[in-house]
């Protein structure tokens, strides 16, 4: 006696066998992003980069008295594993170059927090020839903490706000860097000269994250072309030819 296994599913009608269409896929993505954001906000690593005066208030914030670890925030020594770039005060032009290099090495999503008045408008050093005045011209900033310098409580309040923003999917300044790279590069070149370039291929990363817009490239990114052999993205077709 033979039993026929009944075929209950038809590839054209059963949902398990069907490729989801674009609308369904974006919905799925939203749900996954929501879960990922919730997870991200619970474990954040600050890059251990002491740039200015504010660095002196970080040890109390992180060690036993105020203990940031209970919020899930810890220092991390390498940029590749870090989530938060904390700019703790004034940035001299010389440091800004290193900060931009470091920022571009961090993996997305990444968050920049400007701590202290000097990152907002120059603060105490508003007429100093050596320090930059507004951080947001050179890097996309998620949050500023005002004060000279902010107290540990203020820093923790800022962290809580940042956690909330990440949880709600509002801390998306890093996308702006890819979407408007030309604007940021223009400001960087205005300060460092037209020869300024970094080894990180921001334009290719923008394509990778699907954040490439018409503002990603422009007249300022065109200046990077002379370093193309070394670093910068070739046109998409050329690139594929070389890969072949």
């Amino acid at each position, binding site marked *: 006696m033979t039993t026929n296994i009944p075929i209950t599913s038809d590839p054209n009608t059963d949902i398990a066998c069907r490729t989801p269409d674009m609308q369904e896929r974006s919905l799925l993505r939203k749900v996954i992003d929501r879960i990922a954001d919730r997870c991200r906000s619970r474990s954040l690593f600050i890059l251990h980069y002491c740039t200015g005066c504010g660095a002196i208030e970080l040890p109390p914030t992180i060690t036993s008295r105020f203990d940031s670890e209970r919020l899930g925030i810890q220092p991390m020594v390498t940029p590749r594993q870090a989530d938060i770039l904390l700019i703790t005060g004034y940035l001299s*032009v010389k440091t800004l170059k290193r900060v931009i290099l470091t920022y571009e090495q961090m993996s997305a999503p990444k968050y920049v927090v400007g701590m202290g008045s000097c990152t907002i408008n120059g603060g105490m050093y508003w007429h100093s020839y050596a320090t*930059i005045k*507004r951080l947001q011209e050179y890097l996309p900033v998620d949050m500023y903490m005002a004060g000279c310098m902010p107290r540990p409580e203020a820093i923790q309040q800022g962290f809580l706000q940042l956690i909330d923003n990440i949880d709600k999917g509002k801390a998306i300044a890093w996308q702006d860097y890819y979407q408007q790279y030309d604007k940021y590069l223009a400001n960087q070149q205005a300060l460092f000269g037209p020869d300024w370039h970094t080894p990180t291929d921001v334009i290719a990363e923008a394509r990778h994250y699907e954040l490439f817009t018409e503002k990603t490239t422009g007249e300022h990114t065109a200046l990077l072309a002379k370093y193309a052999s070394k670093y910068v993205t070739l046109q998409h077709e050329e690139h594929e030819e070389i890969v072949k």
Partner: protein
Amino acid sequence: MSNQQLPEILAAVFREIPNLVFTEQTARRLRVELRPDTLPALLELLKGRAGYLHLSAISCVDWPELDEFELVYHLWSYEVKTLVSAHIYIPKNPGRYVSVYDIFTPAAFFERDIHEMFGVYFEGSPDMERFILTEWTGPPPMLKSFSSLGYVEETFKWEQYSPDWLKEIQANGGGIVE
């Protein structure tokens, strides 16, 4: 101040240097003015005879009206316990002076600092490379002819701060005091 009040050991040193003028400013502070060509001899004598082992600092002052740089060598003796500040004036052009590195090792740091901040060149200094302003392309920033605010205004962007509440106050005759 007469030579009698001065410690004899210092008075003996000062007698050796021609055209030296000294005044006592406050307790333990001696201000000495002398010709630039005699300064290395004074430092050598102070170190050798009066125990002035510690070069506290070398300061540079820009005097645009005189067209001169003033160099001030602050020396401290752990024995005499008096600070001697030796002032010399060197012409801004060509802005060169001799290094005292062979007498006081710490001079290397201060001379390097003055070189990048004022543009004075010290002959014989072991290291005249830039230390702080390695990526600076402008003129030496400590010169009086360099305006920090002017540089900031043409390099950095300023955000005009005029929120609505401030405009209201200004309409009523108030505002930010400049």
